[in-house]
């Protein structure tokens, strides 16, 4: 009896680990393939057969991307957006979450109500578009920062974290004569680094990956983001094969390389920064996520 369960457990273990290993490979393979394609000579890629390793190793694809002024400017703009947007968003989120976590705050209840309602009711894509247009935010850099400045979901996560801090903490700071700003910046924030790291990661990834606001609100060349450039290249190539209009590529860059290579290379350029940052923050965001979700 005992030994039979043991054999069964052993089999289960082997099966389980194999399955998870396959899943890991299925998740990782496409990225490795993109990397191999991006490091392979573009005309050679057309012959097929590039899997995990480049056949004719070259950095030309990357060189081309960074020597293209338009792409370089877009990359700089994306970095700028991510830095400014994340900084402002994180500070504003922390502030409102702290205020909401204070039990004696007179506007706590009414603020809570308008947050919850805003999570379910929204005007829809066209009314919001017209609002942004009427505010004069179209074709400005500000449209990347302001409308998404504070997200209700992030406020909720942050507030749940502040809620479970010991009550006496804020009270004793108050007794020592600290005002609200001092309490927040000197007492509460230093012990909330895990959740701040979590929120910072979410917000910065959101900024870095965003292209829909570029697509909807900014048609100016000088305000084009890297993700949007990649999106346009992607749409161009799918339109070409599906025989749609607008397939004439005006992109000079496509004369030197193939759409497949340029797509793979740009995908790598926009993905690598995330891959470098995120594993280091993993232990924080798992904690932050579960805490926020469980409380809700």
């Amino acid at each position, binding site marked *: 009896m*005992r030994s039979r*369960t043991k054999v069964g*457990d052993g089999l*289960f273990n082997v099966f389980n*680990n194999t399955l*998870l290993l396959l*899943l*890991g490979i*299925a998740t*990782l393979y*496409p*990225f490795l393939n*993109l990397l191999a*394609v991006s490091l392979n000579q573009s005309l050679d890629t*057309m012959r*097929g*057969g590039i*899997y995990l390793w480049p056949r004719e190793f070259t950095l030309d694809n990357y060189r081309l991307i960074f020597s293209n002024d338009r792409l370089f400017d877009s990359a700089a703009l994306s970095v700028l957006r991510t830095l400014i947007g994340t900084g402002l968003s994180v500070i504003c989120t922390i*502030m*409102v979450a702290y205020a*909401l976590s*204070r039990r*004696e705050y*007179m*506007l706590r209840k009414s*603020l809570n109500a308008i947050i919850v309602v*805003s999570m379910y*009711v*929204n*005007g*829809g*894509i*066209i*009314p*919001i578009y*017209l609002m*942004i247009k009427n505010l004069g935010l179209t074709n400005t850099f500000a449209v990347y920062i*302001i*409308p998404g*400045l504070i997200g209700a979901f992030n406020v909720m996560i942050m507030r749940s974290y502040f809620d479970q801090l010991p009550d*006496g903490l804020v009270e004793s700071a108050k007794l020592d004569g600290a005002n*609200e700003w001092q309490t927040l910046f000197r007492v509460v924030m230093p012990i909330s680094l895990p959740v701040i790291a979590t929120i910072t990661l979410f917000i910065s*990834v959101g900024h870095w*990956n*965003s292209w*829909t606001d570029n697509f909807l609100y900014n048609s100016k060349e000088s305000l084009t983001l890297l993700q949007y450039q*990649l999106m346009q290249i*992607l749409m161009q190539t799918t339109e070409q094969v*599906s025989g*749609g209009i607008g397939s004439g590529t005006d992109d000079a860059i496509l004369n030197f390389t193939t759409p*497949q290579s340029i*797509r*793979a290379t740009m995908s790598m350029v926009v*993905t690598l920064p*995330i891959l470098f940052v995120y594993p280091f923050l993993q232990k924080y965001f*798992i904690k932050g*996520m579960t805490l926020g*979700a*469980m409380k*809700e």
Partner: protein
Amino acid sequence: MNRRRKSIRTITNEEGIHIEQTAKAIKTDAGLKNNLRKKKWKTFAQQYQLILMSVPFVGILALFSYLPLWGWIMAFQKYSIGRGIFGSEFVGFDQFVKLFNDDWFYTVLRNTLAMSLMHLITSFAGAIGLALLLNEVRSRLFKRTIQTITYIPHFVSWVVIASIVTLVLSPDFGPLNELLIWLGIVDEPVFFLSKEKWFWVIHTMAGFWKELGWSTIIYLAVLAGVDPALYEAADVDGAGRFRKMIHISLPGLMPTASILLILNTGYLIATGYESQMLLGNNLVMEYSQVLDLYALNYSMQIGDYSYGVAISMFKSVVSIVLVLLVNSWAKRVGQSTVL
């Protein structure tokens, strides 16, 4: 440390009660109103810093969540940009009559709901399944590695995901086609992204792959909290790992799982358009277009904003109704709710 904290709290509490009682004693009918106003003013003065901290958020909510609701008026107008909301002619429910007689609207609504539902079901089953399997892994290092890897796609933009999907499904030496040919299932490469019937499947698989690992986080946390005594008791009864997983871990997940499933049905219609826009193309439009894209096309390309707003408004109203229904359902089932 703990005791000190407690004592501070009791002192302030006692003080609070004491002050309140004296305040009550002082209050006479005539002075009551005046006193209350004074008290309110005093808390306001004390809390102005907290109020300042909330100002940006309230401003953002007002501008981008609440004021756009005003735009719903356009759905009852024949809106022209030149005249604006105040000058445009009112046409009553004309836009909605047009909407409900529009065949393409039903196609788009079908696509929206079908893709949401497919995503909901697959991601739900996938998250539970993967969480159960991960929970059984004995090696911590292996578990962490698999977790780290499967979380990656969640952080990668849809643009890159779409780029990967086109690469994998490509008829020119795409890995999937190579595999199918090697296995002898097809004779020549299939151009999957141009096949209407495949679009929902491709879209679902892409979303599944992207969010699978990430969606396990909450379930893993719940599994970590399952009472170890249950597993020990099962050990005594001679249950193997698989049976413990099925009879202890899975039931342990069920309360969380059912509440999450119920709540997520509330969002069925409230999905965006990013993934559909990136994966779709002209050839599969009949299966790829969703409500938001339809509204966008109508407003931006045809210039009929009123109709676009009517579509948006339909979507918002249905999603609110769905959320409310789902919440009262969840309440009846006896689970905690969000509202």
